[in-house]
């Protein structure tokens, strides 16, 4: 099937996509008393913990809570989306073996479910912005570009990892460790400037650093991200999606023998 055909068949099943996303969200919070409130509470709790550690122990700036919560939400969107996307094909094996649906819909549903979660968690983010007296500037209009980039990037990574996970189930365990490392080599909880000059190129090599800066600059500093960073970040997102898409569709016919 051509790429256009693949995209079209994904579009034909948009109703299924919607239902899968709703299911993901509903099932996740079923039987919890606070339900959706956890989506709002979790990032706040992490923020408080990190703020206590970094502000009181390491003497960070007073607006550190905003710095860290914006990055945590961003990183969670990526890490939860991609690790659920990674597992989505194997987890849907029962369906894939019985009904003909475009398989790339399953990682997409995982990413979108987390995007919805993320959207809701913008509420506590806004609250923290107001609470810390952050400057609200027109630069905030660029925030969606950062979100779009990371979502595309997450989908691309999910497609590639989900493919690998079909053939080698240890990809999942490997990825858990990889995420932990990624968390520390991305300036999520620390400012990039604390990294010694000679290692800073390592941060720059990490696409997440660029995308995070594009997302965080308007929120935390109230400024537009550098145009180069904006462009790079979109390219990372698109590039990952294209590569992931190609890998996935190159191997998807063989999934059925392995799931």
């Amino acid at each position, binding site marked *: 099937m051509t790429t256009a055909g693949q995209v079209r068949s994904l579009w034909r099943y948009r109703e299924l996509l919607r239902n899968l996303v709703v299911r993901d969200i509903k099932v996740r919070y079923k039987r919890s008393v606070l339900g959706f409130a956890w989506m709002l509470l979790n990032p706040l709790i992490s923020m408080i913990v990190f703020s206590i550690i970094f502000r009181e122990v390491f003497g960070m700036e007073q607006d550190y809570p905003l710095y860290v919560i914006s990055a945590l939400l961003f990183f969670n969107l990526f890490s939860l989306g991609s690790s659920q996307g990674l597992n989505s094909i194997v987890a849907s094996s029962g369906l894939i073996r019985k009904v003909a649906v475009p398989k790339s819909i399953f990682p997409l549903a995982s990413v979108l479910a987390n995007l919805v979660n993320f959207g809701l968690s913008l509420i506590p983010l806004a609250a923290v912005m107001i609470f810390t007296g952050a400057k609200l500037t027109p630069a905030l209009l660029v925030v969606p570009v950062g979100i779009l980039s990371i979502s595309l990037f997450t989908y691309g990574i999910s497609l590639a990892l989900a493919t690998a996970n079909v053939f*080698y189930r240890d990809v999942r365990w490997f990825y858990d460790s990889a995420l932990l490392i990624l968390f520390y080599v991305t300036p999520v909880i620390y400012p990039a400037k604390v990294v010694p000059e000679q290692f800073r190129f390592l941060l720059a090599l990490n696409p997440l650093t660029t995308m995070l800066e594009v997302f965080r600059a308007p929120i935390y500093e109230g400024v537009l991200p550098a145009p180069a960073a904006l462009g790079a970040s979109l390219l990372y997102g698109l590039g990952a999606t294209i590569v992931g898409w190609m890998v996935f569709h190159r191997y998807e016919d063989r999934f059925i023998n392995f799931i």
Partner: protein
Amino acid sequence: MAAPSIPSTSAAPGTPSAAAQEAAASGVAIRIDDLSVRLSLQKEVVLSLRETAIRWIQRRPVEVEEFWPVRNVSFDVQRGEAFGIVGRNGAGKSTVLKVIAGVLSPTLGTVDVRGRIAPLLELGAGFDSEMTGRENIYLYGSLLGFPRQKLDERFSHIVEFAELEHFIDVPLKNYSSGMASRLGFAVATDVDPDILIVDEALTVGDARFQLKCMERIELFRQRGVTILFVSHNPDQVRRLCSRALWLDNGVVRLLGGVDEVVDGYTAVEYELPRRRTAWTKPDLPSFVEESGSAGKQSAVSVAYRSPNENRQTPPVHGEYDFIDFTLVDARSMEFCREAFGGRGLSVSNNIAVAERVRAAGGDAVTADLSVIDFPDDSFSFVSLMDSIHLLPGLEAISHVLASSARWARDFIFVRMPSYEDEEYLRALGLKHYWHDWSWYPTHPRVDQISSILQSLGLEQYHVSHRSPALSSDAASILPLAAPPDQGVYDAEIHGPKLSIEFPRPIYGQIDVFIALRRFETAQWHDIITKGTQS
């Protein structure tokens, strides 16, 4: 991983190709041309990275077993035609259906499908147990590609057909398997498909719901929907379909008119097991075995795994006093336990029955009567309640009775509706309500059963005629003109019936007790009393 090179094919509906265009012009709904499917089964299915690395270093390739479940199969299904596929388990029927449904890609050959497919492969595969029936209708519907708006419109109709009005907002995990499959069937068949694929999935649910499903399928056929029907029951195929295909070991054995194909299939399939279970039990011993064999159990291990993955059942191991062959109902197990005592093993090709027996704490195995086998004298008795008249003919009944006689030491218990006076009632413009049931292909009479027993050398048996009707007012008697597949008399559905006093009782049920050894009179009498109390 060996990379299979897959030639360009068009399995997905809507993919244009020369063959497809030709098919559209000639009114062909499904065209299968020289289809072969290869599955690569790795000896170890999922490898770890570490093991792959070690194998690579040792230059030891992964062992891949190649397997062709379907080879060089060609056939066309015309628009509006009901087309049957018969064959034993593992003959490749499911593989062909999966290719048509687009789940598997053809390895060689082409498959062209014109129109929207409603696959009834494994009902309810798309259900999520945490979600309610309502949410699942939308999830499952969208999985089959139905638009939301259409599901909104049809929602109440779906719920009504599935008979789940009171449970629709209950999470699916609280449903019985029968309820879930009812919901699956209701959704999959509610929105008009162009092509309906009916796999053996339909053997789930209770008998009444199965009839309802068959009625709906029949309606589809009348409306001109193309139907691809796969069933174990040759009689169903004969009733529904006009043409059929017989798959044997992955290749086409016969393709043609339904009677020709089904005749050929049943002749071979039901002769085969008979040869295998040639009657070997020696003459009945001439001495009286006073102790009987009470308390003596045999250990039996059943690890029946059919090649059809849908039907695999967990292996069963245990010691049993009897086996209960049943096709429609799980209650027979309980009846035997109460009437005759002992521990039973339920054998049924109906997954729902097996699940119900297991849910009640019993052991059950899902298997086909013609395929399963046990060592001689494994059990005290074999119960065949409401099952032998569902077999596809006297040949098959004879085979099952012979096998049962081999497996049991003491007796065989048969219960079924009576067909004795079918002709007589017809002459009066009446019938018993089961006389027209399409799921009851064989109407064995006592004289036919007698001659089977005689041919097997089983000459000690007792027949009880039960449930007498003294006039046509009995609820089990319907006017002859009443539509087929109906239940007991209901004036609103069946219309008025003549009131006739019968000169002799017309019986509704027969029980047959077949002795496999000598019994003391009192002992034999005791068994019959226990079996006929209800």
